[in-house]
């Protein structure tokens, strides 16, 4: 059974376009033409790289939520 999908969001106001997330989790996040990150797909499979990207964002613009329960999965610690 595959793990439950997650929803990735990027706060477009906070994002300062470091590109760290796109480099860390290229399947899930990409840098848009305006220099802000955007999710590649509306939902994604959870992964270590995605969690890492959300934890590493210099301005905490990324949030990873459980697609059905809405629980915040990353960043948390």
């Amino acid at each position, binding site marked *: 059974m595959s793990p439950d999908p997650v929803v990735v969001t990027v706060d477009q*106001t*906070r994002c*300062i*376009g*470091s*590109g*760290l997330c796109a*480099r*860390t989790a290229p399947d899930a996040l990409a*840098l848009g033409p*305006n*220099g*802000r990150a955007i999710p590649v797909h509306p939902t994604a499979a959870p992964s270590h790289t995605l969690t890492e990207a959300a*934890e*590493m*964002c*210099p*301005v*905490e613009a990324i949030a990873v939520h459980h697609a059905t329960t809405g629980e915040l999965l990353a*960043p948390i*610690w």
Partner: protein
Amino acid sequence: MTTAAHPEAPDAQPLVPLHCLLHAEPGPPRQAALPTGTPVWVLSRHADVRQALAHPGFGRATLHAPDAPPLTLTPNILDDPASMLNSDGPDHQQIRRTVQRAFTPRAIERWRPWVDGVVRELVDELAASGSPADVVAALTKPLPVRVISRLMELEGLDIDRLGHWSDHALSTTAYTADEIRTAIREFSEFGYQLVVARRENPGEDLVSSLVQAADQTGGVTEEQLTSLTIGLVIAGHETTMTSFGNALVYLLDPQHADAWRRVGEDLSAATAATEQILRTVPLGDRTSAPGLLRRAVADVEIGGVLIPEGAIIACDAGSANHDPAVYPTGPTDLFSPLGAPSLTFGAGPHHCLGAWLARMELELGLHHLARVLPDLRLAAPVEDIAWRTGLLTRSPLRLDVAW
């Protein structure tokens, strides 16, 4: 005390406080020249600056390539090709990822009690010393070095020497090229010894965790690790001291007396005011460069202008921070939220690593000073301020205050 940069010659015109500097109206990219004569495209609109700083078509590594035109008149630490700031793409991300974890908003938040303790100590000592006092010597200058020293566990080491080195490392004209080279060499040796010592004998401090993270990830050279370590000491020194000193020149103006009280009564007011001050009070006169420098590694179109490969751009965050397309015009409301992030800490891959630490130092510094001394005022007229000018910065050499 370290010897700070030489003050103005006595016959010089008084310099205006930084918050009174005129900034160029944001507009399309325009051509200008660096003090070395090198032509440069200056970007001044918020959208253009943001886009350029985040664009992979512009880099910092090629600013120092053999074919690069001259950028500064004297050597300085920002030219160090091993530094994080002067690497691009995957090389840069490799180093940046090693340190980023220690500098996310949450990671910094965990240090709040430490920073708070350092600030209270300095403010209480200042208040106990009696009126009048020099707030630069007592607070704005020692604060950043004390904080980073505590995070790196450099206590017991010679903090004055650290201050002396970082003064030189960022100087433009205050020291000779030889003096600067010597200081940078000594400082690098110190950094290298520190890296070696913490690898052998790791603790809970920032240097130990950097060394461990670098060794685990691999691919970070000893040179880069050293450069990073001393880079953090300097970054904690000059920028924060400058912002803090200039924020005080601004806030201690009698017309802001109410704002000063509010900053002391309410920490969240201090947080908001810090953001607005960081946005509106520039760090320096930008005489050595009209903005954050990048070099085009491909032809790139920005703001309707084609910047050709090899050209130098300067991103003028000071103008962009006043762009009427993004921020309200007219007098600054110190307590309103910013909306769009200001470009004071840059943007893109090199966005200031220490941004959250700097914010915390400033907000706690302003808050506790205004809380303990709500009637604080400048002891001498603003025109009499002696200024310290660095590579990118200008701030009061001393600032006498009374209460």
